[in-house]
């Protein structure tokens, strides 16, 4: 499928044809909002996006999975709590924990679902200021060895949109110390902590580095003219989120740096 830019010549990057063979599943639950954006990000990065439905009982032949943002099942019980028990999630949990170590990325509500699934430790609670927040957020990439961050440099700062209500990451001190010691804090908020998350943590990974979750939205910063730069002129940040998707695609087809 060809992506047509909505504004004249403002197309993102020239994707490498060799990546097209990599199939990234994008999960839709009732109440998911960002599945189209995530699928578009996969395509703009050069890969093939495969729609997955929460009631599916197989993962098909996908090479990785993105669990996008939104409000699965209305978030009525707790954010992500009901989605965790969807038939497709048990397949994702098994595949992520298997020897094959399926790469899984949870964004925002997807991150909440991954903590509820116990694929990632800790939990998400309401923002400390109790308000929904939407802003361009600077993040530092603390770990560039996960399946989803290989195309970044450790210490690199990126700007991507953030929008959430239950974005406060919490875990007990022992878990936080272990995450730090094992390099599993993958992203930290820079300059401003938008939700009161412990130790400014914006995203974490599992021990193997194939499962990554974060609150901010890299899939909303993948195309020139539509990213954070066009809002506040930070500069150079329009496509900062693209690296998530090129990272996993390069890893899948092999030959990553």
């Amino acid at each position: 499928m060809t992506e047509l830019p909505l504004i004249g010549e403002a197309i993102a990057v020239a994707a490498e044809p060799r990546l097209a063979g990599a199939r990234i599943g994008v999960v839709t639950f009732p109440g998911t909002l960002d599945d189209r954006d995530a699928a578009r990000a996969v395509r703009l990065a050069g890969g093939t996006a495969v729609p997955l439905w929460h009631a599916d009982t197989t993962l098909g032949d996908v090479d990785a999975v993105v669990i996008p943002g939104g409000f699965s099942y209305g978030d009525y019980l707790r954010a992500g709590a009901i989605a965790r028990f969807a038939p497709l999630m048990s397949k994702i949990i098994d595949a992520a924990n298997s020897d094959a170590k399926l790469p899984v990325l949870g964004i925002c509500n997807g991150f909440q679902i991954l903590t509820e699934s116990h694929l990632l430790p800790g939990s998400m609670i309401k923002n400390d200021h109790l308000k929904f927040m939407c802003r361009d957020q600077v993040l530092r990439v603390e770990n560039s060895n996960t399946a989803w961050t290989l195309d970044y440099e450790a210490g690199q700062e990126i700007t991507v949109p953030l929008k959430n209500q239950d974005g406060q990451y919490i875990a007990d001190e022992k878990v936080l110390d272990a995450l730090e010691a094992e390099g599993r804090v993958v992203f930290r908020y820079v300059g401003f902590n938008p939700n009161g998350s412990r130790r400014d943590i914006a995203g974490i990974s599992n021990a193997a580095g194939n499962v990554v979750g974060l609150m901010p939205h890299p899939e909303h910063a993948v195309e020139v003219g539509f990213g954070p730069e066009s809002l506040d002129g930070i500069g150079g940040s329009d496509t900062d989120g693209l690296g998530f998707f090129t990272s996993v695609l390069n890893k899948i087809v092999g030959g990553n740096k």
Partner: protein
Amino acid sequence: MPRIVVDVMPKPEILDPQGKAIVGALPRLGFTSFSSVRQGKRFELTVEGEVTDAILAQAREAAETLLSNPVIEDVVNVEVVEA
């Protein structure tokens, strides 16, 4: 019809932003005697017929797995209430 009531509260060491917002609002309405508020959840599970030990055990398991998140919440009460 009997119901099983499950009460879930945020763990004591977890900051409860909703409780904090409520305790901040109380004095504005003239209620000045309360120094802290914690907001929890009450679930009512209706049972068709008698509540057996097996059904109560199911309710406890549901409370620990789905109704609460053990990372941030405690199940503080599971009890049978006759309608």
